[in-house]
């Protein structure tokens, strides 16, 4: 256990004992939140769309399991969570819940017994939803066939398994409150903010979290490791910022899974496939409007590796040779890409951003871009986990990153990605 982990655990325990004194500080609904899918009159159908936009099904469905019947394992630094059954089964699902119970879960992050819920359930985002939207989602979930499936208890490490201590976490990091429109911004921006900050809970992955799993800053989505992938910052041009893209390119990335030389992989490919590609054009437009208007940040890159370091120079040299043997056939001799089969890697920010986690995983496990309405037969990257060893993958990346300020990749960076579930 690292020192920061120990400190985090201690802090968690301390907060828990102290903070039962603190209450949540709810803020009211101003009644000015954007109306999503307002043209759908039937609450069940509207709820179905909202649940799709929130991708509830993604976490609440096990592989080959009944939709929404729970059971998917969500690995986190605190242990493994198992998403619960949210079909209307009386004993194992939410069959005995009423709309107030559902509202309390989404808005206040409390279970039907009033117990605080773990924030792996993104109520820190869903608290922004209006009561009307929550009621529609509840009506939709109630309309599903009841599936009897016992919930599996979370497997968390001490002290995170002490649920009562969440009181402290909530006092520090959670303020319930329905989305309040920003009067200085247009309707489209506000709609996008409601979708990105609330329903779509983009920040659940794309915002940096502190050692206690709390999002550091709601205003600055800064990226972080989630589900073993690096969710890049949405407000930094050399990560996933969309500021320099055209509106249409940005919409295409969210809707089609690829655009402008970029492809979604890993958990984001799942989000595109299961959720974003099905959204109304006006909702995607609104999200992009909001994302492109995020205040851009330009954090200082990590200091470049000294060019005189012989081991780095040797790694790059080996990487160039390995690149020619294993990669150039599809990606081109100079990593310029070969459209439409393989994207350019030279200058590709997926490779040059400081974190090397995603390109390491792309080389180890390959992957296809998501199959979408616009791109039903995407090209795929082969997995190289058996063919290349840790040092070889690090060498290839160091060669590809040689002209950027990105951190040097070491064999242990690759080794760390060889275990754990694949998303």
């Amino acid at each position, binding site marked *: 256990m690292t020192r920061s982990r120990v400190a985090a655990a201690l802090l968690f325990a301390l907060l828990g004992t102290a903070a039962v004194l603190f209450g949540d500080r709810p803020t009211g609904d101003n009644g000015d939140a954007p109306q999503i899918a307002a043209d759908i009159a039937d609450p069940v159908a509207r709820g179905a769309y909202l649940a799709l936009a929130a991708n509830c099904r993604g976490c609440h469905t096990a592989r*080959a399991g009944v939709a929404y019947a729970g059971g998917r394992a969500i690995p986190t630094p605190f242990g493994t969570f198992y998403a619960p059954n949210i079909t209307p089964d009386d004993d194992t699902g939410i069959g005995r819940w009423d709309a107030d119970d559902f509202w309390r879960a989404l808005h206040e992050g409390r279970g039907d017994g009033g117990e605080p819920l773990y924030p792996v359930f993104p109520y820190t985002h869903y608290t922004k939803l209006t009561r009307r939207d929550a009621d529609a989602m509840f009506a939709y979930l109630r309309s599903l066939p009841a599936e009897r499936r016992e919930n599996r208890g979370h497997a968390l490490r001490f002290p995170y398994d002490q649920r009562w201590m969440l009181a402290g976490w909530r006092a520090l990091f959670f303020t319930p409150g329905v989305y309040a429109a920003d009067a200085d911004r247009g309707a489209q921006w506000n709609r996008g903010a409601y979708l990105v900050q609330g329903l779509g809970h983009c920040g659940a992955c794309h915002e940096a979290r502190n050692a206690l799993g709390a999002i550091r800053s709601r205003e600055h989505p800064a990226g972080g490791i989630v589900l073993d992938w690096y969710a890049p910052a949405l407000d930094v041009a050399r990560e996933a910022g969309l500021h320099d893209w055209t509106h249409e390119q940005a919409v295409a990335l969210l809707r089609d899974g690829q655009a402008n030389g970029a492809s979604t992989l890993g958990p984001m490919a799942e989000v595109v496939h299961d959720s974003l590609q099905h959204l109304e054009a006006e909702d995607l437009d609104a999200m992009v409007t909001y994302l492109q208007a995020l205040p851009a940040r330009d954090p200082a890159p990590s200091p470049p590796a000294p060019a005189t370091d012989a081991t780095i120079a040797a790694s790059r040299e080996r990487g160039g040779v390995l690149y020619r043997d294993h990669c150039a056939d599809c990606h081109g001799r100079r990593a310029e890409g*070969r459209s*439409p*089969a393989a994207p350019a890697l030279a200058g590709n920010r997926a490779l040059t951003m400081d974190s090397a986690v995603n390109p390491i995983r792309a080389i180890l496990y390959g992957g*296809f871009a998501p199959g979408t309405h616009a791109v039903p*037969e995407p090209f*795929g990257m082969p*997995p190289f986990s058996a063919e290349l060893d840790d040092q070889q993958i690090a060498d290839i990346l160091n060669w590809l990153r040689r002209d950027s300020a990105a951190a040097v990749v070491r064999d242990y960076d690759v080794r760390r990605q060889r275990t754990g*579930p694949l998303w």
Partner: protein
Amino acid sequence: MKAALRLLAAVVLTAACAPARAELDTMAQRMRACETCHGDRGRATPDGYFPRIAGKPAGYLYAQLLHFRSGRRQHAQMAYLLDRQTPAYLMRMATYFATLDLPYPAPPVPQASPAVLARGAALVRDGDPGRRLPACTDCHGAALTGLQPAVPGLLGLPQDYLAAQLGAWRSGTRKAREPDCMATIARQLDAGDIEAISAWLAAQPLPRDAHAPAGEVHGTLHCGSLEPTR
């Protein structure tokens, strides 16, 4: 002059790039993602565990792709590659590999003893009526090259792969659609049977006609995997 040169360069570049683009926009290029494990166009690698997929019946391949996603077959890497694709694309993948007609290499020299190979040959050809074990040839074709559209051939596969599949069926980590006749059969096999069957199968050369013919399955067991894949 400069403008003319630029135009010439543009024409030459376009001419050079256009066929390259069309040449790349193919199923063959898309399926290169499969080749690091399954070999060049799915013909397997010489020293690998991973099976040849070229020329297997399309219905069988499509069912396997769905099984990796549903967990009937457990392979995290395969599930990861297939999870976010449409059934129509999976069917295209299956059809692509099924239609590849590539030569088979000579089988490896068997490492097993003659006694083991003889036991394997007997089980494959005759089964074991005493244990109500059908012969492999009852369902997989007299030449063991499979039957269209859903029964795979058993030749040209590595011994390790064959043994692992029978073992996985026996332990329940690999499943077919119910009723799962292969599970019924594999549960009758002991470790010695599995070693003998896989050793003998892996050592057989392909017949001159290695294609899976259309034909009737002669087995007495009812197999869900023979129903059309929905």
